[in-house]
Each structure stands twice: as structure tokens, then as C-alpha cells.
């Protein structure tokens, strides 16, 4: 259970990126966060694991209040939060295996990690995860040799090997082609279901969000303006989130694609 209370972030420039956001994500729920660029989606995700320090308000994970933790405590809690990035954010010059194992850094001491002497059970788990996403042969390749979709799968493995209870996913498909986007989204949703993970997924593609998740939250200028199921996401709601535009096509297309998917 992830709970945000009156979360507010004001940047040094005076921009109010988040405005009293209240949000609860129960265990096992995948939530899509939509909204125009600059609405504060990335800030919200980064305020949860405090890559960005929130100005006020609280974040609770289970019964731990993350916002009050010191550096050591924060590091410990970050292990429970896996993060997946838009541009994959793999360490390009390390191998796939090293990238996956880097998800265990919070559990392993400095010298062990520096000398790459990870416990065997971590290595086993890494192989299991790579197998799960179909990349087991790539384990020894350098990350910059992989395609976009493959890199994002490695990113997913890195997040999951932390054994997290929550996944923070920042635009996972923005750099991928439509087919790969679907595969990645499907994989994330499946894995969350398998492991009963709560997840917040930032996403630009409204249609894709509607296809895969059960709950959608709309953010506009740092304020929550919508919280509901994909079915409730009407033209009126989209106008409220993004502004005036002809939305009929967007929603229409989703139904078409769903039918196509069903037909396959």
C-alpha cells in the first residue's frame, strides 16, 4: 500500500510542480498516470523515492513514512521501490548481467559489488528474471548492444531483482515503437500481477493506458483532475486533462485495437 498525502513540490524556480496530491495505491494495483507534458508526472514518481525532495506532504509505503527518513533509512526503503525509466537508464558500458545485478546494490556491500562477487542466489534470480523476459542469451552482452525493447526488458529485470513492493515506471514506452510498447506494457502488467506489485505508470499514450490498466489518474498542472476506471475516461474528461481537442478518434481507436487484439 502506497499512500501520498497532500504531496507538494515547488521547484527553486517557483514552479509548483505538484499541488496537494492525495493518492492511495493498494497492493497489486497498476495505476496509469496521464497528463500533458509538464503536468508533474515525473516529479510525482521521483518524489516517492525522493530522487526529488518533496516540499511538503508525506509519502507512506506500508507503515513507513518515507518523507521523514534520514539518508541510511531512505537507502533501505529505496530497495523496496523498483524504478523503470523512459530512456532505459541502463549503465551503457556494463553488461546486461551487471545491469540486472545492480538492482541488488542496496543489499550488497561495497567491495562485493565492486568486485562483482554477488551471492549465488542473486545470480540465480538474475538468470531467472532474464529467462522470464527472454534475454538469457544476452546476459554477457554489453547494454549498448541491445535494441530499445531489449534494453527496457533489462531495465525491468533490474527493478524486479530488488524484490520491490512497488514499481515506479516513468514513461516506459515513450522511446519504443507501437508493437514493442504494447509488449512492454503487457509484460509490466503481467509481472505486477504475478508478484502482487503496486505500480504507478506514467504514460503519454492514453490509448495504451486504457488497454492495460484498471485505474487511471489524470494530472494537470500538478493537480489531480481525474481518478477512475478506463471506461470513465470520456471526451469530457480528456478535455479537462489536456485541453480542447477532438478526442473522439482517440477513444474510438482504443475500441478498434481491443477488438483487433481479441481477434488475434
Amino acid at each position, binding site marked *: 500500500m502506497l499512500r501520498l498525502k497532500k504531496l507538494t513540490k515547488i521547484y527553486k524556480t517557483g514552479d509548483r510542480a505538484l499541488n496537494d496530491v492525495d493518492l492511495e495505491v493498494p497492493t497489486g494495483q497498476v495505476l496509469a498516470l496521464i497528463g500533458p507534458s509538464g503536468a508533474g508526472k515525473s516529479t510525482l514518481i521521483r518524489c516517492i523515492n525522493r*530522487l526529488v525532495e518533496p516540499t511538503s506532504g508525506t509519502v507512506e509505503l506500508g507503515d513507513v513514512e518515507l518523507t521523514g527518513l534520514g539518508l541510511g533509512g531512505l537507502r533501505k526503503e529505496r530497495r523496496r*521501490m523498483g524504478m523503470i*525509466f523512459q530512456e532505459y537508464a541502463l549503465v551503457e558500458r556494463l553488461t546486461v548481467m551487471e545491469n540486472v545485478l545492480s538492482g541488488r546494490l542496496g543489499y550488497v556491500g561495497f567491495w562485493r559489488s565492486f568486485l562483482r562477487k554477488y551471492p549465488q542466489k542473486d545470480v540465480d534470480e538474475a538468470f531467472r528474471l532474464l529467462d522470464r523476459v527472454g534475454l538469457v542469451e544476452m546476459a554477457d552482452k554489453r547494454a549498448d548492444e541491445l535494441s530499445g525493447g531489449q534494453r527496457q526488458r533489462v*531495465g525491468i529485470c533490474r527493478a524486479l531483482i530488488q524484490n520491490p513492493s512497488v514499481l515506479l515506471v516513468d514513461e516506459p514506452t515513450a522511446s519504443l515503437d507501437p508493437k514493442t510498447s504494447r509488449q512492454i506494457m503487457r509484460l509490466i502488467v503481467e509481472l505486477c500481477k504475478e508478484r502482487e506489485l503496486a505500480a504507478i505508470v506514467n504514460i503519454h499514450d492514453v490509448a495504451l493506458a486504457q488497454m492495460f490498466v484498471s485505474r487511471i489518474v489524470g494530472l494537470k498542472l500538478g493537480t489531480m483532475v481525474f481518478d477512475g476506471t478506463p471506461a470513465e475516461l470520456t471526451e469530457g474528461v480528456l478535455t479537462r486533462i489536456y485541453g480542447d481537442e477532438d478526442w473522439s478518434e482517440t477513444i474510438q481507436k482504443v475500441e478498434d485495437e481491443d477488438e483487433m487484439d481479441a481477434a488475434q
Partner: protein
Amino acid sequence: MAISNVDGQKVWQRRDRNTQFKIWFAWFIGTAVFMWCWQQISAATTWQFFWDAPRIAADIGGRAVPPRWSYMDKLWEPLWDTLNIATLGTVLALMMAVPVAFMAARNTTPSALFVRPIALLIIVSTRSINSLIWALLLVKILGPGVFAGLVAISIRSIGFCAKLLYEAIEEIDETQVEAITATGASRWQVMAYGIVPQVLPAFAGIAVFRWDINLRESTVLGLVGAGGIGLQLQGSLNTLAWPQVSLILLVILFAVVVSEWVSAKVRGAII
């Protein structure tokens, strides 16, 4: 950009008349200054020596050929010294430059207010003094010999290596660092996993580049008594032993060519 209207037609030229005139004027000033300097220098030149120069050069050239190959026996050791000064000097410099670079880079410095200015001061001060001058000073302090040369080379290299390295550190992709931080890694782990792999190619490149430069610089350090092949060069020049001078110059040329080749190979291997 100049767009003018001539007979209802839009005419485009690269520059308008004002800019054109300014550029012409700048050229005029530049040419005038050049002519004036030319005149000053030529007035201060003793033309006898100048017209004499080709004959003297040909004379020295004639005496220098053929090189005295047997002198090579006495060159192996100073050559080895020179190589050691360059190599150990570079290693020593890198060991000192790495922490300085991390303290100077905006994204890794422990304190931008206090530590960073100190690191930048170290970089500027060691860089601004030529290694020959460092050697002159150190020969007085440490006494003549290889060690003075080694220290001179390494001090001069700190600033150079640290500056290039800290620029590389500032240019890293921050999202990779963010990703490692998000796993709950400690500060040192973030360094080892998020930053070091990204700057490693730059580091290796800087190391061989500086080694290459240091080999050249260490060949002249002997001129001020700081060891290496320069000592022999100075001795030969002072005794007008031209065949030895030509041999030493050939040896230096050969060493530099080899170092070029090595650094090119190393750089090719790491990228």
C-alpha cells in the same frame, strides 16, 4: 541578413552595408598592425646573421652527418630514464588527478562552495607553469637527477589530467546515476556503477595522451639537470659534438614515433 526592396523585388544579401563595412575595416586594421610589426622586427634584426643562416645551417648539417652511431652505447640508459620519467610521472599524476577531478566536477564535488574552488585552484596552478620551470625549481630543491624530473612531470600533469577528467565527469548521463541511486545503492556504489563506467574511456584516453606528451617533455628536462636524455643533448651541444646531437635527435624522434603508435593502439582498443 539584409533584405532590400529593389523595384518591388526582394533582394537578399548575406550582409547589410554596415556589417560589410565593419568587416572591411577590421581587415584594414589587422593588415596595418601586421605591417607595422613586420617593420619593427625587421629593424631589430641583424641581417648579416640572417643572410648567413643558410650557410651556417648547412655547415652544422654537414658536420652532423653521419651521426656517431657508436655513441648509442651511452644513450640506452638515459633513454630508459626518460621513458621512466614519463611513465611513472604520468602514473603519479593520475593518482593525484583523479580525486582532484571528482572534487572539481560540479556533479560530484562534496561542496561546490569550499572544495570545488580549491580543486580548481590546484588545476590552474599546476597547469600554468611549464614542466621545464617546475624542473628548474625542483632541481634546486631535490637536487639534480631523475627524481626531480619525475616530480616535475607529474606536477605539471595533474592539472591537465584533472581538467580533462572533470569535464568528462560533468558530461555523464545523469539518468544512469539516477537509476543506480534509485536501487538504494550507497554513495560509493553510485560512484562505482553509475559514474566510473561512463568516464572510463575518457580516463584511458587522457592517460595515454598525457603519457605521449610527457615523453616529449621529459626529453628536454635534462637541459636543466633533471635527468633523462636531455642531459646528453646539452653536453653534446656544449661541446659542439654535432654527430652526437644528430644521433640524439634521431633517437628522440624514434621514441616519439613509437609513443604515438602505442597511444593510438591503446585509444583504438578502449573505445
